[in-house]
């Protein structure tokens, strides 16, 4: 049984073939990274997994069950959480409130219990707070707990978005360029957290990343993409040394 698998995935926008016949498999508990030059189709793969776009070809499986025919919120409820390349937080809410949305798939009380705020609703709410506080502790967000997201520095928002995804207690975590826009120190923290997420929270990570130092440090395996097609797969060192990858990044030697 495979944990997560993508088979012959493809999509085109008009004449642009954004993803073309991409297949890969992510093993439970590993950090699997997709790299590739700008416009290679990495984010599009995430959007296909999240069912934000309808795939023109191919299938996606979580624990051998196909995702097809589902809708985006079902994907989240199955335990696939993601962050966005351009940060999609709830701007006018506090950090705490943002993380609490992450608990949505674990809600336990019915609408009537919520309207009356019965003891059951209170218990569910307290459990949600407790889970979120653990994430806040884990990511060291305590001092921003009650700040509005709209006023936070970029680096902190990235961490908040990671926290919101973690609050869902995902089985598979999709990170779209977790280090983009971060300074070296923040990138180092991010690498540390990704290692911790894998080791202590036992969450499988599928990541898109440009920073090759980060990739080499945290990834078990790497998939290289160019123009929507797979050009190499293997350990970070193998992929970095692969002639097709070097060519994709640097252009063909004359």
């Amino acid at each position: 049984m495979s944990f997560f698998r993508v088979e012959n995935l493809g999509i085109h926008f008009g004449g642009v073939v954004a993803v073309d016949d991409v297949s890969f498999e992510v093993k439970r508990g590993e950090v699997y990274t997709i790299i590739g030059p700008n416009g290679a189709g990495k984010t599009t793969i995430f959007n296909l997994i999240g069912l934000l776009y309808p795939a023109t070809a191919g299938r996606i499986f979580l624990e051998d069950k196909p995702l097809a025919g589902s809708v985006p919120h079902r994907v989240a409820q199955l335990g696939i959480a993601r962050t966005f390349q351009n940060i999609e937080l709830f701007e006018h809410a506090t950090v705490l409130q943002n993380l609490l949305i992450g608990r949505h798939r674990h809600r336990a009380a019915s609408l009537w219990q919520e309207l009356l705020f019965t003891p059951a609703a209170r218990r569910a709410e307290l459990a949600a707070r407790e889970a979120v506080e653990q994430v806040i502790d884990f990511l060291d967000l305590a001092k921003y707990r009650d700040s509005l997201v709209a006023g936070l520095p970029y680096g902190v928002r990235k961490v908040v978005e990671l926290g919101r995804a973690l609050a869902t207690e995902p089985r598979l975590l999709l990170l779209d360029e977790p280090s983009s826009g971060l300074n070296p120190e923040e990138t180092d923290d991010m690498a540390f957290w990704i290692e911790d997420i894998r080791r202590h929270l036992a969450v499988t990570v599928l990541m898109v990343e440009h920073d090759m130092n980060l990739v080499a440090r945290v990834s078990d395996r790497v998939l290289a993409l160019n123009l929507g097609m797979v050009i190499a797969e293997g350990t970070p060192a193998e992929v970095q040394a692969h002639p097709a990858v070097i060519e994709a990044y640097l252009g063909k030697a004359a």
Partner: protein
Amino acid sequence: MRFLFKTDYDQDIRLFKHGGQVFWYGLLMALLLTAPFTVGEYVMSQLHFIFIYSIVGLGLMLLVGFTGQISLGHAAFLAVGAYTEALLQAKGVPVFISLPCAALFSAAAGLIVGLPALRLKGIYLAIATLAFNVIVEEVITRWEGLTGGNSGLHVKPVELFGVKLDGDAGFFYLCLGLTVLSILALMNLLRSPTGRAFVAIRDSEISASCMGVNLAKYKTLAFAISAALTGIGGALYAHKVSFISPEQFTLLQSIELITIVILGGVGFLHGAVLGAAFLIVLPQLISLAKDYLPANVGSSGLQAVVFGLVLIGFIIFEPLGLYGRWLKLRTWFELFPFYRKGMFRRQKSYMKSERLR
């Protein structure tokens, strides 16, 4: 300035955050409970209207202010509530059954309107709800056998367990009670996952759905709850004015209802009540001012103009509404003399360069 030291999660969840709030709301409640004995008949009547419009405003606030869905058709839900109540009361159904029925029928209408909301956004949704308003108005006018058409329906005063609530005080307590219950229910909802899902949809639909929020379900739910509250308001309205006819539920009424939300402050429950109060008090102010104006200024025309100007003024100068104004005033006092201009300005520390879809 007040600093709260939190020692357990319950402190985040409870409705009253500190003793001061308990005191002020307690005082307000005490004043309201004794109002039937302290204020005159005229003020009492205005208070009835304020509470009725508060309930409607709360419903609309949930939809517009918290879920981010616009509606220019809420007068239709008001009508469904009012006519349901009027017809059931005429059949002798007791009010503790007819009132929930008014809410239920309205909610059902809300579900129907919620369906296009799944595909439409912004101005298109506004037009769809507006069309719904026109349809309901037409149906009421044409279905003379049931609704009496343009000649309207008379509505009896409320009777609760054989006691007639036609006295000002009885009806006042009913309206007050229902307003307080509506506020409490919405406060409960907003501190629960459902309320957070609404707010998430308002702020970013993509993020909400990627967090597992079922957009279709929660948007229709927001419409249904909003319509239910508006239906209750409509039922009380029918009793209050004791005669209902189609021209009370036109597009103009819908716009007045949306005015409550905008004047009060989009996104605050307080705003719904403040907005309702303002909507009722403004015409009084206008008629007072008319004594000092030239005789050829017409009264109905003047009211429409002032309403329009106030609405535009608020949208341009105080998008946070009356409640936002109050928050700023309070902050100014708390921080005196350190308040600086622009403290409430939204920060844009980065630009979104590219968005999905």
